[in-house]
């Protein structure tokens, strides 16, 4: 299993800069990245994935410098669900999810095992009914679930999910968070719904204006911390609706 390390990471762009002194995430941790819009959550994910190059600092996987890892190796270490994903041309849902097996296939075709894994995952994520429909004809939430299935199908050791529950209804959100927290992989995900994150994640990174404000376990998430991160008043125990799976 993979261990992630970032040291003295910094990145600058016009009027935004991100600085992470030290971050270490061991195998299997479920980490939520919290913070207001534009605080650097997505940028952090892109730096950790090597989609952006840091102005200084290093990202290491199992002690290996990210720069020195081949694309094929990276795809087995981590997978990413970006905030916006698109598929041009009428590829079917099945094909899109099958693409997730790409890092594991040799030559120019998928194996029977890849097909089986794809079918299992489609069933698990409630997507079997439209597996033959073109991806582009689905609703936003359905597309999101298909992309999530694609990411999980990659079977990488670390899963980066940029707002996994964006545009999902509450039933599928609960289902997917339950699925994720039961999986052995490391999950690192920016989440906007604080209550949901609090329920399903173990460790919380609070970002504010490109700085790591706090890196705490669930028990240390306090109203004061939330207040400082988001600049709002926080009280507890006033939830009007509670949702359960």
């Amino acid at each position, binding site marked *: 299993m993979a261990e992630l390390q970032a040291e003295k990471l910094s990145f600058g762009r016009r009027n935004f800069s991100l600085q992470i002194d030290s971050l270490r995430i061991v195998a299997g941790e479920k980490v939520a990245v919290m913070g207001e819009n534009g605080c650097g959550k997505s940028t952090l994910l*892109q730096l950790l*994935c*090597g*989609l952006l190059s840091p102005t200084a600092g290093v990202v290491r996987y199992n002690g290996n410098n990210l720069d020195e890892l081949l*694309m*094929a190796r*990276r*795809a*087995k270490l*981590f*997978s*990413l*669900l*970006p905030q*916006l*994903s*698109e*598929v*041009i*041309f*009428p*590829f*079917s849902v099945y*094909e*899109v999810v099958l*693409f*997730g097996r*790409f*890092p594991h*296939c040799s030559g*120019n*075709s998928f194996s029977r095992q890849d097909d089986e894994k794809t079918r299992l995952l489609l069933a698990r994520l409630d997507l079997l009914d439209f597996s033959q429909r073109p991806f*582009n004809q689905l609703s936003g939430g359905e597309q999101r679930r298909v*992309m999530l299935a*694609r990411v999980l199908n*990659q079977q990488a050791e670390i899963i*980066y999910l940029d707002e996994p529950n964006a545009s999902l209804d509450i039933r599928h959100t609960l289902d997917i968070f339950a699925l994720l927290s039961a999986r052995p992989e490391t999950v690192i995900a920016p989440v906007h719904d604080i209550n949901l994150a609090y329920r399903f994640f173990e460790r919380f990174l609070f970002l504010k204006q490109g700085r790591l404000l706090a890196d705490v376990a669930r028990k240390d998430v306090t109203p004061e911390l939330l207040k400082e991160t988001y600049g709002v008043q926080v009280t507890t125990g006033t939830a009007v609706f509670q949702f359960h799976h």
Partner: protein
Amino acid sequence: MKRWLWVAFVIALCAACLMGATAINPLNMTAVEHDILLNLRLPRVLFGAVIGAMLGLSGSVYQLTLKNPLADSFTTGAASSAALGAILAISFGAPAPLVPCCALVTGLLGLTLVYRLSLTNGFINPVTMILAGIVMNIVASAVISFSKYFFEESISSIVFWLMGGFFIVSWGRLLVCALVFLVVYLSFRQRALHLNLLALDECSAQTMGVNVPRLRSFAFVAATLLVAIAVSYTGIIGFVGLIVPHIARSLFGSDMRHNLLYSSLLGALLLVIADAVARVIIPGGAELPVGIITALLGGIFFLYLLQTRRERFWHG
């Protein structure tokens, strides 16, 4: 379906060989007709097929890498900037083998310019891309016309370059085209699965193990090589690469493992038929530049695509 397509292709090849200024009856040939069939018609029809396959394949790859259903060698400006390079090379007296090389260089420059112009925040704006391609075409056509007037005052050669046509065919050129097509096709075929992932957004494709910038550069160079060679030998034949990838996708799905082959095959079929029509449509043996026919078909198809895909096209 796939088998019928091949059958249709073979029939089209045979029929095209027999059509033309002199219709040939294969069962009752004179020596002259025999000569025409073997030394004129056959190489020309095969040449049309190979050029069509090259344009179809390049269109398929352009549409994928530029994420634009309206992309092909013509609308991206690659063909006209390649023609510009070829004409400048000819005008300055470069040796014949250098002409396609110059066409490749200017074709790539034109394509890169259009690509850069349409790129905003890592996403390609399809509308800007088409506009930039059109401007590229206008400028390149103007320079082509200028240099033709300046260097040789010959209207007919301007028509050849801008409308396209198979006026000079030789077995040597046919062989070059066939070889280049085969090499490029096989190298794309080998990467078909990688190419598929380019249909996804760049972040997803990259984290799935595809080196996106490198694969895209390779696709640009290889597809433009096809266009550069086709343009150097036959002028600008537009829209073949726009039409056939769509037909191939609606017949056999979007998977590039099929689309590469069937875009090529349909491109060959389309151009063989268009050329046969160009040879017989004017009574009395005169020939129409084949680009006029493909432009007519392609223009209508372009409008159809604009109409059916408008919503998604403008709003991403």
